[in-house]
């Protein structure tokens, strides 16, 4: 208690709002955190620190928080249920090396679809993703274009779709350069029985683009679908209901101090970071165990 009085009586550089003052103010916990960014934020646990910085940015600018697309929200809630328990404890999966997944929906002004029924079904869309939220310490493991289809409409048993991607490189003075199109043909067989989501792995395509220090990603996506496997003339009705413009899903490995290191947790609680771990512990890396056994 005395330490709290001391803090409440001094005027700390962070203008801490003493708890008793909050009766008159909105009970917003972010107001209890050091206001000046960076002041005392080192004392905050990682989640509070991340939220206080995030909350301050949006509160400070008075910017209302944009609401995400409901389909995208549903997909991420399903991903959360697969990755963590109800209490929020990450599930130990062998292949699950990511500790961060970010889902971006394209900016609204650049959504336009046009279907050309000449050769089967063609959907093309011009997408602009703002990747501001990806930090320098988050390294890309996998990127996916996420298509969601409205499966209420009757669909054929299986479709063969090909997806071509190309990007518009923006020059340094952001005038439109001749588009350096990187296109990768994908062939995709998917029975559209009950599946609402189709994931296109575009990692090899986006890796160099996301690694470059850029904030915006401009991608043109053409999806051509033919009935079954044999090419055929386009039936009178379109094969695919017009898909919603795809979202971009990035699986990342966050290497910052506060992020959970999956490769390091051997299913046991992590030692208190304030107390250095023993060097020979196999927790650090699998080879540690063998090396110490050899030494013994």
């Amino acid at each position, binding site marked *: 208690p005395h330490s709290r009085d001391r803090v409440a009586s001094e005027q700390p550089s962070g203008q801490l709002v003493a708890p008793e003052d909050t009766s008159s103010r909105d009970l917003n916990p972010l107001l209890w955190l050091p206001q000046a960014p960076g002041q005392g934020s080192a004392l905050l646990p990682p989640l509070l620190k991340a939220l206080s910085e995030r909350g301050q940015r949006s509160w400070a600018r008075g910017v209302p928080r944009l609401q995400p697309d409901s389909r995208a929200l549903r997909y991420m809630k399903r991903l959360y249920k697969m990755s963590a328990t109800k209490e*929020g404890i990450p599930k130990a999966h062998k292949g699950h090396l990511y500790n961060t997944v970010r889902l971006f929906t394209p900016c609204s002004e650049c959504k336009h679809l046009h279907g050309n029924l000449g050769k089967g079904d063609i959907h093309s869309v011009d997408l602009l993703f703002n990747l501001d939220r990806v930090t320098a310490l988050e390294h890309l493991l996998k990127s996916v274009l996420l298509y969601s289809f409205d499966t209420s409409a009757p669909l054929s048993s299986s479709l063969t779709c090909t997806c071509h991607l190309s990007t518009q490189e923006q020059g340094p003075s952001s005038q439109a350069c001749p588009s350096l199109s990187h296109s990768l043909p994908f062939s995709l067989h998917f029975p559209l029985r009950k599946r609402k989501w189709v994931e296109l792995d575009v990692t090899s395509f986006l890796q160099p683009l996301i690694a470059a220090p850029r904030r915006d990603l401009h991608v043109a996506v053409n999806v051509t679908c033919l009935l079954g496997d044999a090419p055929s003339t386009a039936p009178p009705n379109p094969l695919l209901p017009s898909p919603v413009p795809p979202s971009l899903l990035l699986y990342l490995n966050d290497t910052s101090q506060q992020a959970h290191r999956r490769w390091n947790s051997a299913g046991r609680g992590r030692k208190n970071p304030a107390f250095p771990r023993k060097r020979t512990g196999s927790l650090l890396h699998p080879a540690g165990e063998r090396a110490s056994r050899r030494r013994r």
Partner: protein
Amino acid sequence: EESPKASPASPAASNWSQYFNQFQFPRDECELHTFRLSFSQLRWDRWIIAPHRYSPQYCKGECPRAARYRYGSAVHTMVQNIIYEKLDPSVPRPSCVPAEYSPLSVLTIEPDGSIAYKEYEDMIATKCTCR
């Protein structure tokens, strides 16, 4: 049991409990306590979608003198206890603090409307120690 009279060291049967009390560990000994909060209490549920409940737990209680054996404490902890008891009571007794943590997965809505799944380290205390 053979000798009819009670041995001088052990007390008469009547105050056995008082006799054993001196060996009992402190009642409010250093241990892990449960604390559950929901992000809606903090009104953070507008951007923290999951989990709904978060149990950070905490460590609280007295550190007994034999902290080394029950808590895997460093020898320094016992030295600090001896300093407090024998030399200088202004030196604080060892404190009951977390020794191990587990991570927490969080699903949040970012200010730009994108959605992030993140796993944060050291968010739930799972074991206590005396330091």
